[in-house]
């Protein structure tokens, strides 16, 4: 028993267990927390493969940003999960059926797994050995050269997502009083206060 194998099974089993808990936990907040656990262990699996860059990015992006917003929303929404679950049994047969079909297909496919003989030349691995180059470097090199086009287009997709979110949700509310910092800073004593001599018993 190699240590590496042991660690792999540790990460893998926790990932799977956490994933099961995500869909079976009663409390939605717990679901999100288990999801985070699953992300963590997936990052661990990446580390085991020697893909440290992906592991860190997974933690930063998914755990550090996406899941925080998930948690935020779930906590704010106060979802009644018991109600949501009512249809669960009703849809279980068809959902289960689709799952089983996909599983059988996957098994069929994996069972007959042979990469086409003609693929050998094409699939020539340009992947350098892990020792030669850090994988941050390797990813950067391939992303900005070979996959330049999809990389830039992915940026456009994010732009669309941002524009879309703003279009669908931003509402200009009338009558909101906003702070104008420059105006506040520009206020002088003369503008702000007026000294008046009030003689007693007269009022202003």
């Amino acid at each position, binding site marked *: 028993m190699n240590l590496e194998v042991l660690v792999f099974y540790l990460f893998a089993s926790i990932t799977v267990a956490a994933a099961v808990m995500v869909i079976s936990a009663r409390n939605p907040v717990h679901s999100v927390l288990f999801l985070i656990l699953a992300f963590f262990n997936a990052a661990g699996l990446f580390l085991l493969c020697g893909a440290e860059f992906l592991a860190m990015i997974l933690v930063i992006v998914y755990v550090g940003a996406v899941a925080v917003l998930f948690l935020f929303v779930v906590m704010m929404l106060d979802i009644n999960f018991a109600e949501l679950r009512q249809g669960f049994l009703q849809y279980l047969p068809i959902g289960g059926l689709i799952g089983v079909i996909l599983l059988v297909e996957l098994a069929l496919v994996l069972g007959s797994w042979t990469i086409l003989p003609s693929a050998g030349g094409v699939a020539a691995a340009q992947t350098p050995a892990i020792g030669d180059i*850090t994988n941050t*470097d390797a990813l950067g090199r391939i992303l900005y050269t070979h996959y330049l086009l999809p990389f830039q287009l992915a940026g456009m997709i994010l732009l669309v997502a941002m524009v879309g979110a703003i279009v669908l949700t931003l509402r200009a509310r009338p009558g909101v009083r906003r702070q104008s910092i420059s105006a506040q800073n520009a206020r002088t004593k003369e503008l702000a206060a007026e000294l008046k001599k009030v003689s007693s018993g007269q009022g202003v």
Partner: protein
Amino acid sequence: MVDASPMTGTEMMVELALIVAKILAIVVPLLIAVAYATLLDRKVWAMMQLRRGPNVVGIFGLLQPFADGLKLLTKETIIPAGANKGVFLLAPVLTFTLAMIAWAVIPFGDGLVLADINVGVLYLFAISSLGVYGIIMGGWASNSRYPFLGGLRSAAQMVSYEVSIGFVIITVLLCVGSLNLNDVVKAQEHVWFAIPLFPMFVVFFISALAETNRPPFDLPEAESELVAGYQIEYSSMSFALFMLGEYANMILMSAMTAILFLGGWQPISIFGLLDWIPGPIWFLGKIFAVLFVMCWVKATVPRYRYDQLMRLGWKVFLPLSLFWVVLTAGVLVGFGWLPVKG
């Protein structure tokens, strides 16, 4: 990466013992440092307000942190009736653990680091972005309004400032050409990044204040509005863990500032006069200096309003740091200064 060559049982044990010893060598001094950071905080604050601060327990109040610790240790841990027990107890533990494990990659001297990994900067960034979970979990699990509000505030605040911290880190990385923290320090042999990247240095420091919930961005706790924010329901050791985690994070952020902008363990080179002082001392000195400024800010700057905080993060820092990323990249490419390896 785990070493592929199989190890015998004794070798493994020795290796393990060595690692544990190294960890202890970092964690124990760190905890003491954290204890004294609380004292430093109070002393600096007091002096700026012309008070004396803690001065009863020990000379200059030097034993005050231990007295506080002992007091908290002997109190009863109270868990509110409506609280979500598991999450409630997990939150402080998480905060504390995260604050500790980040130190694994901090280089105290040339090569003097527990785990010299290739993506050290990303590791630190990842850990610091996780800090929000302790707070938001604690705030939610307390099942009470003020803690919840504090938790939500902190979630929004920390996520917002992480964005600009990320861009600042990218500008530094552009100049270094590596994600290894030791390389980052070495790249500052001639000039600290605080000088050419001065605006980013400022942005980073201020974002670090927001990231650690330090004044003037201490809205998650905001005594005057939320009583104590997410910490209200915590008592005894669970509260102590939050406090320890918070101060450890403060020191961590100071260490990050020192590494990214102040040359880490590199000495201040005045014709080699001060080079005899060992690297770790320099490093600790720089951390102390940054810590002092943090306390200074606490004593002098009033707390931001929430919309001002968000405005600063999204409308000032984000465009500024984004602009600097482009500018830095442009200058590096334009003058051919890009650190290309291999």
